[in-house]
């Protein structure tokens, strides 16, 4: 099981701990280095503290303290962070329009199939 991740960083922003850990687990399985935060505010701290920027941010929409939309807005204000692609991850019914609104690079509907998740992350982290 060679790792397509090559140790590249993926930021997971998700308030549900189980989901956050499950996501981190399967990504680590394929050799990514997952960072994770329980809300937008924590995610911003994580990003500013990180030495290398993640190749993609997996972003939940509904979260306490700072939700996905606020986080995305903050991200866009920061030139150092605004270029990082964001994939919206939600059970929200209007996921596609919400993703467009947030100028996301893509979206994944919960529950996420493992293959779809890996394919999407590969799409952003495979280039360079």
């Amino acid at each position, binding site marked *: 099981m060679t790792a397509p991740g090559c140790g590249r960083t993926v930021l997971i922003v998700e308030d549900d701990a189980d989901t956050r850990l*499950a996501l981190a687990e399967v990504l680590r399985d394929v050799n990514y280095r997952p960072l994770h935060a329980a809300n937008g505010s924590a995610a911003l701290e994580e990003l500013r503290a990180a030495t290398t920027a993640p190749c993609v941010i997996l972003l939940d929409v509904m979260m306490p303290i700072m939700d996905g939309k606020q986080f995305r807005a903050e991200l866009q204000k920061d030139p150092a962070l605004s270029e990082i692609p964001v994939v919206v991850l939600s059970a929200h*019914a209007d996921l596609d329009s919400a993703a467009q609104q947030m100028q996301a690079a893509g979206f994944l509907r919960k529950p996420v199939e493992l293959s779809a998740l890996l394919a999407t992350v590969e799409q952003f982290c495979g280039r360079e």
Partner: protein
Amino acid sequence: MQNGPVQDELNALRASAELRTVTESIQDCAIALLDPQGVVLTWNTGARQIEGYAAEEIVGQGFDRLYTEEDRAAGRPQTLLAEALRTGRAQQEGWRVRNDGSRFWADEVISPLRVENGAVKGYVKVTRDLTRRREQWSEERTLLPVASVTDYAIFMVDPEGTITTWNLGAERTKGYRADEAIGRNFSMLYTPEDAAAGKPRRLLRRAQEDGRVEDEGWRVRKDGSRFWADVVISRVNDGNGKLIGYTKITRDLTERRRAEEQLRQAEERLRLMIESVQDYAIFMLDREGRVATWNRGAEHIKGYTAQEIVGQHFSRFYPPEEISAGKPERELELASSTGRFEEEAWRIRKDGSRFWANVVLSATRNRDGVLIGFTKVTRDLSERKRAAEETAERARQHSVAAELGLYALQTAHLDQVIERSMQTVRETLQIDDVRIFRAGESLPPGARTVRIHAPEPDAEYGFLAASASRPLTANDVAFLQAMANVLAVAMARSQSEEQLRRAEREAAEERGNTVRVQEALLERDEFISVAAHELRTPLTALQLKLQGLENSGGFPQPKAERLCAAVRQTERLARLIDRLLDVSRISQGRVEMAPEIFDLAILVRQVAEDFREPAAQARAALELQLPEKVEGSWDRLRIEQVLVNLLSNAVKYGAGKPITMKLEELGDVVRLFVADRGIGIATDDVDRIFGRFQRAAPIRNYGGMGLGLYIARHIVEAHRGTISVASKLGEGSTFMVELPRLSATAAAGRDKGPRARA
């Protein structure tokens, strides 16, 4: 008769030489003493000379023989004695009879003689002969001015009727000159009929007997013409009372008679005219108000015949209350003081009925201004009054009806309108009993009823029934009908309003229900939405972990197989949740189509391929009847969902029998059939299977939430297509989806981001 003390007195009186001398010497007066019975006791010289009896002839005889036969027969002598006794003196002028039977005109005084105690001893009779004086008076009257009198025909005839004198008046009245008349019998002056009947002789005889006779009648002039004459014939005696002839005074009354005749005729004409008048009661009252004349109009109007009413007081034409108030008398007084009285008032007919009368009462006076009675003209105005009253009544009833109509219009409550109309009828018609009867109720006998019409022809709400003691007029009935019509309108309105209120109530309830149902549905959709989201979060973690495990490999059998099944179940769980979310989105109208052009035949094959395994498990052979290529513009994922739903139903309910999927092209329309030969759907259930959570099959045998067909219907309808089913219980069902090749939304392409398949 020569009895006691009286006789003694008389004898004493007679013995009085002095008195005798006095009385006996008196020649101008006949003085006689009478006993209480009228027997002559003394007789003086005057008596002998005047009355012709010697004392010895008369003393001892009753004094009544001195009177005429007529006077004796009439009891005059005794009457005179009685009068003298009563009043103390009786005086009389009249004829007396002498011993020789001749008559003389006498003045006679009889006085009673009384003794000291007041008893009557007898009478003194003193009689004077007035013949001479009478003749002198007669001659003066007759002879002196006679010749020159022209207004009267004055002439004398002898006892046989032969004319002896003739004056100017006679010549002028009768046309004969004196020389033509004198010597002829006066009967020539009478009409031949009167002459033949012996009238002239009869008149002379009466004049001879009574001294005087008066006659009015036709007389004849010389030229034969007649004239109406007033004739007085008087007996003429000589100095001894012997008949020597008659004076005849004739006045020509022709002119007066003509005038009288004309007047009489005029009166007669007037009387006839008055009598024949039918429309007016014209009659006369005497001064006291008693009916004196009666015409036909009076009989016609008042009902009495002349025989019944003439002589009766006119007050009986008045109502009792006016009689007791003295009105008839007051009217007579007014008429006599002002000449005329007029009024319009009630009068009473013979049968007691009243009529409205115009009455003019005029005082009637003679030429001298003396009131002789009243003329009364009465007209019966009942008809006119009734007509006027009817018109007024009709106008009043119209206005009352109009007023009630307005009230009914302004009043929403039928009860109030009914109450007011009952009151209006009672007040206007002056009746007590008016009621409303429903159609079918038995109506009171004798009541006047009118229908309260219902809007439908020949139908009624009921009847308005009025009972009155008086007969109701056509006016009254028309008024009742007007009231009934107002009621009918009010009832119709009340009925419509009741229906409207009921309908509104039902509609409101319906709206309420709908709102509640909608609210309930919204709540449920909301719940489904929230529940689906909540389920997805743990499912995400579960599925990732299981798939992660499966991917990592290294599990020996049968653990690897069990892990695989767990992954399949989580995937199935995810699909169920997706479907729930679809339903909630559909019901909230949040489904958006993303059409793209693709080949439907390929999609059908793919779905059929996906179902190969479950179909095989249900022992249902899948048969495809597909054209080479069926292109169109549709939302691929949604259409795939429709196919999956229809096919999974067919597999579920058509187990053990072949399942057919068929595509047909009809120009711009594409038809998809999915047919099974399973349990089928009852006719009653066909319509509801496309609803939410609806299932035709009993839940214990067949699982599922009953959402598949609901979602399929909405997807098809969003493509402007239709979905239907033909089914027979026990024989299977065939679902048909008809889609336009290009749905309206196909043109609206949109920027699509990457999508994950549900």
